[in-house]
Each structure stands twice: as structure tokens, then as C-alpha cells.
């Protein structure tokens, strides 16, 4: 901490206090997210391997632990291709845009009760608003690639995210109703007094989980990039580092939404013995583990089934859940 404070003071010497905190915070988050992606990619491959009775990467480093670093170097070194007849500006912008919202959201998750990068009174709303922006860049990527598969992937992505934002929001709202605040920090603190909200709101937790599976485009909802139908979906035409950007965004999104889920339903940083951020991270990775487990078990839904699942089942259930919560909270007390 003293090192960080010293670094901040040194930067503040020529940039001012506000900018220094801002920059350092952003740099820290970026570094963490980058390492997190490397770790998640490895974890996913290892887990996938063990689910399938193999072992995943084994060659680079002990038990393949450095595989993602090798992959990152490979992706960095690959030639970046821009197909002809693309909408060049949008095509180049999309991979940059794709993880900006995710980064912003990452900075809004409270890590501990004491210290946090952000203590927004409307944190939850900001997060949900921002995470909906990711889809825009996915659609940009799909549209600008001038590839029919990519357009189909992009369009599927838009309709999917629109459909699944709603149950996510409604599930989060039922938590807000209990906690009586949209400040994430206060939501966690409210859980310290009672139990984790997953006990009060199991249905909302399930809806939220399904919603984030769809929002992170993971199986069984990986329809925008459905490999066996749309080759690669929206990122068909991206190669090298630009492809890695989408990859980066996807895994960061998993982390951020997993952390949001942990904050809303699993008590965030709360937990005995260990420091708060460690608890948060553990809970987040537990959510991500289930995401990975689900991905390596189920086949993919069809697009229309996915939509009717969201509109005909998830949203009514979420609304019903919300109404019941409202009655219980306000009527019963």
C-alpha cells in the first residue's frame, strides 16, 4: 500500500491528485484484468480438459501453466489481416470499443467496505447500462466485416442481449428492493446484517445466472459465435491481436458479471479470516466455475428457442418474482 501511495504521490506531483488516482486505479485494474484473462483462459482449458477426461495444456511450464502467456505472445505476433471491402473505420474501432464498457464496469465493483475505486450511489444502474454497450461493438464488428456470417452473428447478439438484459435487470431489482439501495457497497453491507441474498432470492439468483450466461455469449447461449453454424460469428474476420481483444473482452465480461453476481447474491467481500477482495475473487471464480461447467456440458439452444425462453419464461418469472418481492418487502415488512 505504501508503495502505491508513494507512486500516486509521485504522479500527483505533475498531474494533480485527481488524475493520479484515476490513472493509477485504471492501470491497476487493467493489469489485474489482463492477468485474470490469462488465468481464466488457462482455467477454462484445464477444466474443459478434465471434464472431458483429458488434461488440457501440459507442455508450456509446469502443468501447462504458462500456456496462455505463450498464446498471448503468439496472438501478438500474428499478422493482422483486414479483409477488403470492410467498413474500415468501424472495423478497426470495434475491437477497441468492445472492452471499454467492461473496463468501466470493472472499476465500479466494490472490493472491500473500506476502500473502493468507486462508491457510486447508482452503481448498479450504471453497471447494467454500461454492460449493454458491449453489444454495440459486437454488432459493429459483425456489420463492418462485410461477411454474412458475421452480420448474422452480430444481429443475433443484439437481439439476445436485449432479451437477456431484462431478466438480469429484473433479478437485480428484486435485490435492490430488499436492500433499498442501488449502491453496491450498501447492498453488500446490508447482506452483512442478514444472510446472503441468494437465500432470500434463489429465483432471482438463478435468473441472474442465466442472464449473465447469455450476456457473456457462453454456451448454451453462445449463439452469436456459434461455431458450427456461423463459423466464428461476429469475429469471423478478425485475426491476431484484434481477435484477442474480443477474447479479452469476453473473459473480462465473465469476471465482471461474475463479480456483480457475487456482490448481489453472495455477499460480495464478506467472509471470515481472509481479506475482502480475496473473498470477492473467490466467490467470483466460483460463479465462473459454474459458467465453465455449464459450457462444457450442454449443447447450444437454437436462436428462436433462446428468444422464446427469454421472453416467454424468464421475463414473466422475473416479473412475478419482483412483484412477490415487492409485496413481501412492503406488505409484510
Amino acid at each position, binding site marked *: 500500500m505504501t508503495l502505491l501511495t508513494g507512486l500516486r504521490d509521485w504522479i500527483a506531483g505533475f498531474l494533480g491528485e485527481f488524475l493520479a488516482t484515476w490513472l493509477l486505479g485504471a492501470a491497476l485494474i487493467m493489469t489485474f484484468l489482463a492477468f485474470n484473462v490469462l488465468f481464466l483462459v488457462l482455467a477454462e482449458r484445464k477444466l474443459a*480438459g*478434465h*471434464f*472431458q*477426461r*483429458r488434461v488440457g495444456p501440459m507442455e508450456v511450464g509446469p502443468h501447462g501453466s504458462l500456456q496462455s502467456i505463450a498464446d498471448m505472445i503468439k496472438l501478438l505476433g500474428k499478422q493482422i489481416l483486414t479483409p477488403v471491402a470492410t467498413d474500415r473505420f468501424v472495423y478497426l474501432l470495434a475491437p477497441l470499443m468492445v472492452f471499454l464498457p467492461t473496463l468501466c464496469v470493472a472499476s465500479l465493483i466494490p472490493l472491500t467496505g473500506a476502500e473502493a475505486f468507486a462508491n457510486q450511489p447508482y452503481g448498479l444502474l450504471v453497471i447494467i447500462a454500461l454492460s449493454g454497450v458491449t453489444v454495440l461493438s459486437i454488432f459493429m464488428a459483425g456489420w463492418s466485416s462485410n461477411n454474412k456470417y458475421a452480420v448474422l452473428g452480430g444481429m443475433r447478439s443484439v437481439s439476445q442481449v436485449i432479451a437477456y438484459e431484462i431478466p438480469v435487470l429484473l433479478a437485480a431489482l428484486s435485490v435492490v428492493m430488499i436492500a433499498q439501495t442501488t449502491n453496491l457497497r450498501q447492498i453488500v453491507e446490508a447482506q452483512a446484517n442478514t444472510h446472503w441474498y441468494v437465500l432470500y432470492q434463489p429465483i432471482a439468483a438463478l435468473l441472474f445466472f442465466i442472464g449473465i450466461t447469455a450476456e457473456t455469449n457462453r454456451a448454451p447461449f453462445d449463439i452469436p459465435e456459434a461455431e458450427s453454424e456461423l463459423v466464428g460469428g461476429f469475429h469471423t474476420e478478425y485475426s491476431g491481436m484484434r481477435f484477442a481483444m474480443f477474447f479479452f473482452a469476453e473473459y473480462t465480461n465473465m469476471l465482471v458479471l461474475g463479480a456483480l453476481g457475487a456482490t448481489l447474491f453472495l455477499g460480495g467481500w464478506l467472509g471470515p479470516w481472509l481479506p475482502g477482495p480475496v473473498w470477492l475473487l473467490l466467490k467470483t471464480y466460483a460463479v465462473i466455475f459454474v459458467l465453465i*461447467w*455449464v459450457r462444457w*456440458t*450442454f449443447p447450444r439452444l437454437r436462436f428462436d428457442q433462446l428468444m422464446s425462453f427469454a421472453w416467454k419464461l424468464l421475463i414473466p418469472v422475473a416479473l412475478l418474482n419482483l412483484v412477490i418481492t415487492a409485496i413481501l418487502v412492503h406488505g409484510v415488512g
Partner: protein
Amino acid sequence: MGYLRRFATGAWSLVVGLKVTANHLFRRRVTLFYPHELPDASHWGGPIELVTFPATGTHDCIACNACVRVCPSDCFTVEGKRPEGAKKMRATKFLIDFSTCSLCGLCIDVCPTDTLQYSQRYDEAFYTRNETFNDLLAPFGEDPTFAGKPT
């Protein structure tokens, strides 16, 4: 009510599926670390090779060209000559173009002296096309039958 039951069985089927994969998560791997662990290739029919007969310590190819004639893809290049004082021919050159060989084993069937067999080599890899020519006489070194005489 029926709808609810359908929904419940559907959801339960997902849980059952998750249980199957979770069961496998902690079981032993079934794969083989190929370059570090080698599969059992004792029955594998790999590229054709010449048999070393224990009695003579060498092959018994008489360059009869039966394999050349039967080969569906013309893999063989066989040349031979008669050693002085011998009755039978003996191979001086025996090449197989492994890139065209389909490992059908017809040459093994027709070999009159049973001197062809499948090897157990299963990891043949080549960098150039010309390497695919297997010199089957190479493992036998200089043929003592022709020793001392210019060939």
C-alpha cells in the same frame, strides 16, 4: 400443471447432465501424452519392411518383383542381381514410396519368400516429399553376399 411438470423434468435433466460431467471431472484421464508416452503398437501395421530371418540374420528378397506387380499404387522400386554361384537373385535396391502406399498388405500376401512384413512404426513424419522413399535395404548394411565384388 403439465407445463410445470415438463419444466421441472427439463430442469432436472440439466442437473443430471451436470452431474455426469462433474463425475468425470475427478476421474483419471484417458488420453496419452503422445511424445512422452507411447501407445502400444504391437499390432500396428505400419510401413512395409523386410523381415530379418533369425537363421540367416538377413532378409530373403529374391527380387522376383511379385510385389511390384501386385501393388495398386506402384510404390515399389526393386532391383536385384544374381550373386556369383547362387541360384536365386538377391535384391540390390528396394525402395518404397511411402507417400503412395496405402498399407493394403497385398505385397505381403504375394511375397514368395515371406520376407515382407508390416513394421510397427506409427509416427512417420516427413519434411520433404523425397524422404517418403523408404530404403528397405538400409537397415541391413552392406550385403555380405555381394561383398568384395564391385556391384
